[in-house]
């Protein structure tokens, strides 16, 4: 019997490769995260052949992809446009993590402002080695960039997504609406704490390959890992818990449904045992 179970466990059933953004687990502290589109009144998205209003629609579709995962409590809430008279987001520079945690550069006043929630903006910043760097220069082939620029310990407070619409040669201008939605969804994955995936068909793969109209199992597992549904109270209400609270004493009112089932089993078995002994 055990040989069969061992054999079954070696079947190549699925392959996953989701990763996380940092060497500590970063996640939003609340499971409902607003996603805003920045409109600073300067038609910053023009080089990308879309408008800020189009971007609002792309964000709505992209959030729908992440919100469809039943094993994740995360809900990205499209919150429409936020206006600004300055050009802090559309011309500003994202803070640089240098691949280290905690990032020290994000409170710098010269950087894109720290936010609460997720801000999506078009960037016209074509400066070398800033938002869309490649080998130290600006690259038109980079489609977008994301930074979690506001952290409180290991809680993500805010992330900024910048779409590369810096000049008329940007690669994103040739992308279809569905491709741009996939790009936005990919960046939202970074914004909530996911890294790249090794799976080429995954939404979180480094490149925008082929058709990406839905999450893969890999993406769904990643967001479920970071934002798992937890039972609370009577068991039909899910709540989000930080995963590093996993080892803390569990709320005694949790698992009530499982306890009901186990109680039922015990009563039945006890009665069965009693009848057996009585008839013996």
């Amino acid at each position, binding site marked *: 019997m055990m040989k069969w179970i061992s054999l079954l466990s070696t079947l190549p059933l699925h392959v996953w490769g989701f990763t996380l953004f940092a060497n500590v687990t970063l996640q939003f502290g609340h499971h409902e995260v607003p996603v805003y589109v920045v409109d600073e009144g300067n038609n910053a998205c023009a080089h990308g052949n879309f408008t800020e209003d189009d971007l609002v629609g792309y964000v709505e579709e992209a959030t729908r992809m992440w919100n469809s995962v039943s094993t994740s409590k995360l809900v990205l809430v499209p919150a429409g446009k936020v206006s600004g008279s300055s050009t802090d987001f559309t011309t500003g520079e994202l803070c640089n993590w240098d691949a280290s945690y905690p990032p020290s550069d994000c409170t710098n006043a010269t950087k894109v402002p720290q936010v609460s929630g997720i801000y999506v903006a078009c960037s016209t910043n074509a400066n070398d080695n800033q938002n869309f760097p490649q080998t130290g220069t600006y*690259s038109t082939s980079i489609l977008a960039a994301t930074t979690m620029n506001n952290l409180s310990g290991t809680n993500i407070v805010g992330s900024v997504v910048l779409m590369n619409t810096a000049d008329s040669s940007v690669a994103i201008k040739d992308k279809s609406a569905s491709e741009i939605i996939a790009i936005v969804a990919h960046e939202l994955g970074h914004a909530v704490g996911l890294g790249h995936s090794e799976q080429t068909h995954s*939404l979180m793969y480094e490149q925008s390959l082929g058709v990406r109209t839905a999450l893969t199992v890999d993406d769904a597992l990643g967001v479920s890992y970071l934002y798992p549904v937890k039972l609370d109270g009577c068991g039909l209400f899910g709540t989000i818990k930080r995963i590093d609270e996993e080892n803390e004493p569990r709320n005694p009112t949790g698992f009530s449904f499982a306890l009901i*089932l186990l109680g039922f089993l015990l009563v039945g078995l006890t009665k069965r045992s009693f009848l057996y002994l009585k008839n013996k």
Partner: protein
Amino acid sequence: MKLIVLVCLILLHLAALAEQTADYELNRGYFTFGSLTQFPGEYQIDTAGTKSSSFDFHPYFAGGLEYTLPEDWFITVEGGLTVPETTADEALTLYTLFLRSDFAYRVLGGRLKLLIGSSIMMMIMKGNGGTTTLGNAGSSTTFYRPELTQTTYNNTFDLGAEYRFNQEWGARAQLIAYSIFDSEKTQYSYTLSINYSWDLSQ
């Protein structure tokens, strides 16, 4: 609405417990082997946009008890576990543990049982940590593999049917609906299984 459904389920179970007639008894035990297909057609499986197939062989084992109620009604309680899956690089191990309770009604002279009930589906993801270097905007970046054990808990609504070949052997199909109160997150899985049961009333 959720609270009303939960209270109804609890009251129905308690009512069954309180029934002290001769027809209420722990009648049969059973052992099940089956396949759990998670979220068919929901997720993309290649760069052409193909969605996951309608059937996915994902084996599980389960055991349960059946209580006979009056008037061709039964209650079944079941616990099961899927065979763990591990990535080729052993970065992540995934398996599902479930606890289920169903009301069943026997029709067609006892050959067919219709089931309605609820489960707790616990998807357990065990990360083994480590790092990997992946491409990022023309260069490469170190990303981090999950290192903790994380469990998601979903309370589901289940519908099923079981065909009895004879007293011992049967086959069951069961639909598992996730997040039925949240239309954006509603997803479906299903199981196909065979079971062997034996009489406990002797």
